[in-house]
C-alpha cells in the first residue's frame, strides 16, 4: 500500500507527488508547518516551496485556502465561508420588570416622553432599558413633543402589536377592563397627571374595547 520512501531517496518524486505530500502534511499537522520542516519530512530532493506554490494556486477560490501564518503554512477555511463555522442558538428570556413596565407605559400612553415615563414609574428609566426595547423593535421614536426642549416621544411598533396579537394599540385592555379584571384594585393615586384628564384620555383611546 505505502510507496516505500527508500525508492525516492535518490530521485525526487514527481512535482505532482510532491504537491500531494505537502497537501497531506499541511492537512494532518496540528500546527502550521515551515517550508524547512516540509523539506525535512519529504523525500530527499523534494522542493517543498515549489510544491507549496502549486498547491496554493490549486486551492485558489476553493472552500479552503493555503495561507501563510508567520513563517509557516496552514490550510484554513476561505474567509467568505466563515459563516458556516458558526452555529446560532436562540435563547428566550423573560423581559425584566423595568423593561416590561416601561413598555406598558409606552403602550398605554403613547406618544410618551422619557420624562413622563419616569414620572409614572416613579424611578428614572435607564438608557439600557429604552435601548433594549428599541433594539427589539417593540418601540420606536414618535414625533417630538412641541414643548420646551422638544423632547422625543416613544410609541409602540407593528412588531409589538404582532407579538402581543393586537390589531392596534387600541385593543389593549383599557383601565376599565383592568379594574374589572381585578388588576386595578383601587383608583390611581392623584399623581402628576390629572386623574380626570387621564381617565378621559384612556377612555377615548380604548373606548371601542369596552
Amino acid at each position, binding site marked *: *500500500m*505505502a510507496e516505500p520512501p527508500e525508492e525516492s531517496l535518490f530521485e525526487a518524486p514527481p512535482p505532482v507527488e510532491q504537491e500531494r505530500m505537502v497537501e*497531506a502534511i499541511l*492537512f*494532518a*499537522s*496540528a*500546527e*502550521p508547518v515551515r517550508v524547512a520542516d516540509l523539506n525535512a519530512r519529504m523525500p530527499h530532493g523534494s522542493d517543498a516551496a515549489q510544491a507549496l506554490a502549486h498547491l496554493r494556486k490549486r486551492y485558489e477560490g476553493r472552500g479552503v485556502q493555503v495561507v501563510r501564518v508567520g513563517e509557516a503554512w*496552514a*490550510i*484554513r*477555511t476561505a474567509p467568505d465561508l466563515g459563516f458556516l*463555522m*458558526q*452555529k*446560532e*442558538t*436562540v*435563547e*428566550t*428570556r*423573560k*423581559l425584566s*420588570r423595568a*423593561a*416590561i*413596565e416601561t*413598555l*406598558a*407605559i409606552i*403602550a*398605554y400612553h403613547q406618544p410618551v416622553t422619557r420624562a413622563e415615563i419616569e414620572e*409614572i*414609574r*416613579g424611578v428614572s428609566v435607564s438608557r439600557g432599558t429604552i435601548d*433594549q426595547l428599541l433594539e*427589539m423593535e417593540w418601540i420606536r421614536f414618535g414625533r417630538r413633543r412641541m414643548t420646551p426642549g422638544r423632547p422625543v416621544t416613544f410609541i409602540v411598533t407593528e412588531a409589538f402589536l404582532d*407579538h*402581543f*396579537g*393586537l390589531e392596534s394599540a387600541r385593543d*389593549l*385592555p383599557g*383601565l376599565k*377592563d*383592568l379594574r*374589572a*379584571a*381585578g*388588576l*386595578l*384594585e*383601587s*383608583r*390611581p*393615586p392623584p399623581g402628576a397627571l390629572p386623574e380626570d384628564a387621564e381617565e378621559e384620555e384612556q377612555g377615548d383611546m380604548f373606548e371601542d374595547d369596552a
Partner: protein
Amino acid sequence: MDETQPSLLSVNERLAAEALIVDVDGFEGPLDLLLNLARSQKVDLRKISILDLARQYLAFVEEAKRLRIELAADYLVMAAWLAFLKSRLLLPPDPADEGPSGEDLAAHLAFQLERLEAMRGVAARLMARDQMGRDFFARGIPEDVTRIRTVRFTATLLDLMQAYARLRTRDEFRPYVMDRDAVYTMEEALERMRGLIRFAGDWVDLAHWLPEGWGNDPVRRRSATAAHFAASLELAKQGALDIRQSDMFAPIEIRRKGN
C-alpha cells in the same frame, strides 16, 4: 488414517500431544487447541477427519495425565464429549436412539472450527488494513464551530397588563391588602379570575395570576394559591377555562376555553 494402524498412530499422536502440552498455556481453551490439531492435518478444514481429531485430542489429554499436568476443567469436558462423539462415529447408528447422529455432531464441530478459523482470518485482515492515526490521518487543526448565542426577550400580554396595573395601583396597594390580613377568599379569586380569564389565550401558570403582594409571603401565597386554584376548578366546571398539569407538582396551567 486407518483403524488398522492403531499403534503407529498412537506413537505419532503421543509425540504431537507432548509437543502441544509444552505450551498448553498458550491455548485459548479446547476449541483453540482443536483448531491447532486440525491445522496439523494439513488439509482443508472442510475435509478434516473429526474422528482423527477426536483421537488426537484424547491422546493430548492422556499425555497430560501421564505427565501429571493439571488441565483446566473445560479441557476435560471437551475430552469427555469427544470420547462420546468418537464412540458414536465408530458404532453403527442405533435406530432407537433419538439424539443427533454422530455425523451431525461431527459436522457441527467442523463448522465451529471452520468458523473460528475464518474469524481469525478476517481479524488479521482487519488489523492489516490502513488504520487512522497510522496510515491515514484526520485534520490536524480542526476549526471549531463557534456558537453565536442570541437572546430573545419575550413577554405576554398579561405581563404587560400586570405591569401597568402594578404601576397604577402601587401607592395605594399595600394598605389596601394589609387590612385583609393573610386570607384571600375563593369568592374574591373567582371574581378576579372571571375578569382576567379572557386575556389568557395561551397557557398561563396559575402562580403568575396571584395578585400583587400575595406572591412573596408564604402564608399569603398559600392562601391566594388555594383560592385561585379553587376558583380555577370552579371556572373549569363552568366551561370558562381549561386547566392542566403536566406532572405531579408541576405548575398548574390555565387557558381560556375555546382558544
